[in-house]
């Protein structure tokens, strides 16, 4: 056979695939005009391109800065760039709360959910609104410090500025890639190759994963290029791209709202076959074990193949641990309804990031928990903006065995609603980062939840008197192992004293940006002496940390693994050396903006203690 035949076959397949791809997003008329354009081998400029900076930051999962501040907060991502093209750690940029793997390596680290699809690795997100809806042609992200965290860009069909609620909220992935290591902290303009979509958008979502980065990533601005009229595909996109073939599958997965996933969940009538072949020989438990490695959408697809596998796939034993966070764009009331019958034994449920923009209603959520809450041990609801007081009431009533509750960034829950949490006496972990929990509710929780081991009160701005809170903790929460008091504005040495005396099992303490703690009161010395099990201590931006404190830590907290003393002028290289010699397990030491610790000192310490990551951020 001559080599021409296979070539012709390949070429015709090529042409067929191109046509098929374009046919998805074009009408017949446009196809004809496209052919006309192709034959002229020239693309006529039909649309004027609009270039926009983000008008407003609508939502985000975390940030480094203080609420109401313009330093290191997500709101800096809107508008024109303030820093780019300079590189450095500047206040005018948008910074997320965490980076690297440090938070996965401390006592408060949580076990991951299994069955997470390999394509989902997002840790944080930010949603931006632009003035004009456009068909995107390019997205530029100006990263000004430790770039490389963006893993996914999505576009939404809903216009956040329209008066009427949208009929359908559809999210389309413009670009997605696994995190890659970018060497160096230098600023860059990141312009990934985005997919063309068939609806105009002015709502863009960035998802990030900073696990490979050496320090906090910082973003300055996002630029959206697009056209007002639906574009004719240019010749460029007709080139065959291996990614396109995968993307077709992705389109099927993520396009057209929730219907696809819901159909998969729904009951399907199947033909009867007399036997199941070898599957009849395998023990039930073995098939269950094999199926336990499938992601949830695959499980749903498998359920449609035959009655035996349908039975297996709907077995509640497959839904003991369920994470719906990777599918946040598609989960709605209908999905929860379909899942209800399968989740009666559920113990771990992750609904973080789901339900927003009307996808999940309070009644839908409540119904689900009423059926499925009895065995629930761990409930993740991070960024659940649909949650209100009723939801908290339902959670606390329907989940008597609840041990872990994550309400991170659930900023729509009213302050008094948190009182309900006190009813869950078995709570071991409670995350209230960036919520509006108020003083009396928290005191009540601390009073009744004596099993608490992990508590996060980072950026809880409605708490008036942290000394009182600390006192209650010291008295009631004897089992506390990790405590996050990041940006707790008014805790003083008396609160610290009560904490240190009462919670002697503390291994992790985050006192970053707590300005009212003064080293001269001896509070840090007290901490060091009373808490020998400390593995992680953050004293970020406490300008009073001094040599004595470091020496006390070296003498008493030999298990220390992570220490952050950013921004103090009072610590010298000598005391750091003592610390490094004494604390053999130390792996992270952040000495950014410590005036006595210059780059030369850092190099020298690095040479002598190679297992320690010594971080020194810079502004120039």
């Amino acid at each position, binding site marked *: 056979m001559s080599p021409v035949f296979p070539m012709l076959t390949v070429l015709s397949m090529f042409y067929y695939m191109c046509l098929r791809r374009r046919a998805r997003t074009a009408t017949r008329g446009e196809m004809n005009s496209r052919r006309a354009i192709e034959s002229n081998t020239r693309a006529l400029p039909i649309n004027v391109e609009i270039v926009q900076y983000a008008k407003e930051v609508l939502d985000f999962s975390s940030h480094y800065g203080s609420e109401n501040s313009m330093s*290191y907060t997500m709101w800096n991502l809107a508008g024109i760039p303030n820093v780019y093209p300079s590189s450095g750690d500047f206040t005018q940029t948008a910074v997320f709360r965490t980076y690297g793997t440090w938070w996965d390596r401390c006592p408060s680290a949580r076990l991951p959910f299994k069955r997470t699809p390999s394509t989902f690795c997002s840790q944080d997100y930010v949603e931006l609104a632009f003035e004009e809806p456009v068909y995107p042609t390019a997205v530029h992200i100006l990263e000004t410090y430790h770039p490389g965290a963006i893993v996914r860009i999505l576009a939404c069909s809903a216009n956040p500025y329209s008066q009427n609620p949208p009929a359908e909220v559809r999210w389309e992935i413009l670009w997605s890639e696994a995190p890659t290591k970018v060497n160096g902290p230098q600023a860059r303009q990141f312009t990934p190759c985005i997919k063309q979509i068939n609806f105009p958008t002015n709502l863009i979502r960035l998802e990030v994963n900073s696990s490979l980065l050496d320090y906090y990533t910082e973003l300055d601005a996002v630029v959206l290029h697009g056209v007002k009229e639906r574009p004719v595909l240019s010749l460029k996109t007709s080139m065959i791209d291996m990614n396109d073939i995968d993307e077709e599958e992705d389109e099927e997965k993520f396009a057209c709202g929730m219907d696809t996933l819901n159909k998969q969940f729904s009951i399907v009538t199947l033909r009867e076959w007399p036997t199941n072949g070898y599957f009849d020989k395998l023990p039930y438990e073995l098939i269950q074990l094999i199926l336990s490695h499938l992601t949830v959408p695959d499980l749903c697809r498998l359920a449609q193949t035959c009655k035996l596998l349908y039975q297996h796939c709907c077995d509640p034993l497959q839904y003991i641990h369920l994470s719906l966070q990777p599918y946040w764009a598609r989960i709605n009331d209908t999905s929860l309804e379909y899942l209800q019958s399968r989740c009666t034994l559920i113990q771990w449920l992750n609904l973080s990031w789901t339900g927003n923009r009307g996808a999940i209603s309070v009644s839908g959520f409540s119904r689900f928990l009423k059926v499925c809450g009895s065995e629930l041990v761990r409930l993740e609801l991070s960024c659940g903006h649909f949650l209100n007081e009723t939801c908290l009431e339902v959670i606390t009533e329907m989940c008597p065995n609840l041990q872990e509750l994550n309400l991170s960034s659930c900023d729509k829950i009213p302050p008094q609603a948190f009182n309900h949490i006190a009813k869950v006496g078995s709570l071991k972990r409670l995350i209230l980062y960036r919520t509006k929990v108020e003083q009396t509710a928290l005191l009540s929780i601390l009073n009744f939840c004596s099993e608490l081991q992990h508590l996060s009160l980072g950026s809880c701005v409605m708490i008036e008197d942290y000394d009182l809170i600390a006192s209650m903790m010291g008295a009631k929460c004897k089992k506390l192992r990790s405590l996050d008091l990041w940006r707790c504005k008014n805790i003083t040495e008396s609160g610290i004293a009560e904490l240190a005396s009462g919670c002697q099992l503390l291994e992790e303490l985050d006192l970053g940006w707590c300005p009212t703690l*003064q080293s001269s009161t001896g509070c840090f010395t007290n901490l060091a002496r009373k808490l020998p099990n400390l593995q992680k201590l953050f004293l970020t931006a406490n300008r009073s940390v001094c040599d004595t404190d470091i020496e006390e830590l070296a003498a008493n907290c030999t298990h220390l693994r992570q220490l952050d003393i950013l921004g103090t002028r009072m610590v010298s290289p000598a005391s750091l050396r003592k610390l490094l010699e004494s604390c053999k397990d130390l792996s992270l030491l952040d000495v950014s903006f410590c005036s006595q610790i210059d780059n030369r000192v850092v190099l020298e310490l690095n040479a002598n203690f190679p297992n320690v990551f010594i971080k020194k951020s810079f502004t120039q």
Partner: protein
Amino acid sequence: MCYGDDACFVARHRTADVLGVADGVGGWRDYGVDPSQFSGTLMRTCERLVKEGRFVPSNPVGILTAGYCELLQNKVPLLGSSTACIVVLDRSSHRLHTANLGDSGFLVVRGGEVVHRSDEQQHYFNTPFQLSIAPPEAEGVVLSDSPEAADSTSFDVQLGDIILTATDGLFDNMPDYMILQELKKLKNSNYESIQQTARSIAEQAHELAYDPTYMSPFAQFACDNGLNVRGKSCSSSTAAVLERSLAK
């Protein structure tokens, strides 16, 4: 913009024009702290607040308070202190809202006469009210006034009014009549003329400061307080001028 230890800014947001001036306290130099860092960062921060619309035109003290709080949110450990004067011109209501902490200040000149001026805030001679961030060991020892202590006024302005903000380098060295003389030379309201006038006022003040024979207002005041001084050799005097005009 920074001039020696002084810093200033001019910014606009919708219907408000804002002038700000800050005089870094020179005494920090003796402790190894650059006095211009605090005043410069404070003014840049206030400028950013204005440009991003994070302020209320009728509340210039709010700008100072927010600006000062933002300084504390900086990872870089800032030290130092400065006076501050913020002046907000609300073009929609034709009102000027001012906040002044310390001995910088403003003048409003109408028809060749001073119609409004700021009051100096001093603790004692040559020690104005000041915003400050002190090193931890000096907490309580270093003078640190709250932004809320700023003097705040509001009044109507008219077309053709000239609004001048400056640090004490101007007011201590140039008596009113000399300032008014310079302002009379301002013929039109374009940017270049105003900038030229501001520059010449500042230059004159600077010359007078170094004139050993000149009895400046500061020197007069010093004499009244029992000190023998001539001129006032300060490192900087900064003047920013805004003219209320229809075009803006």
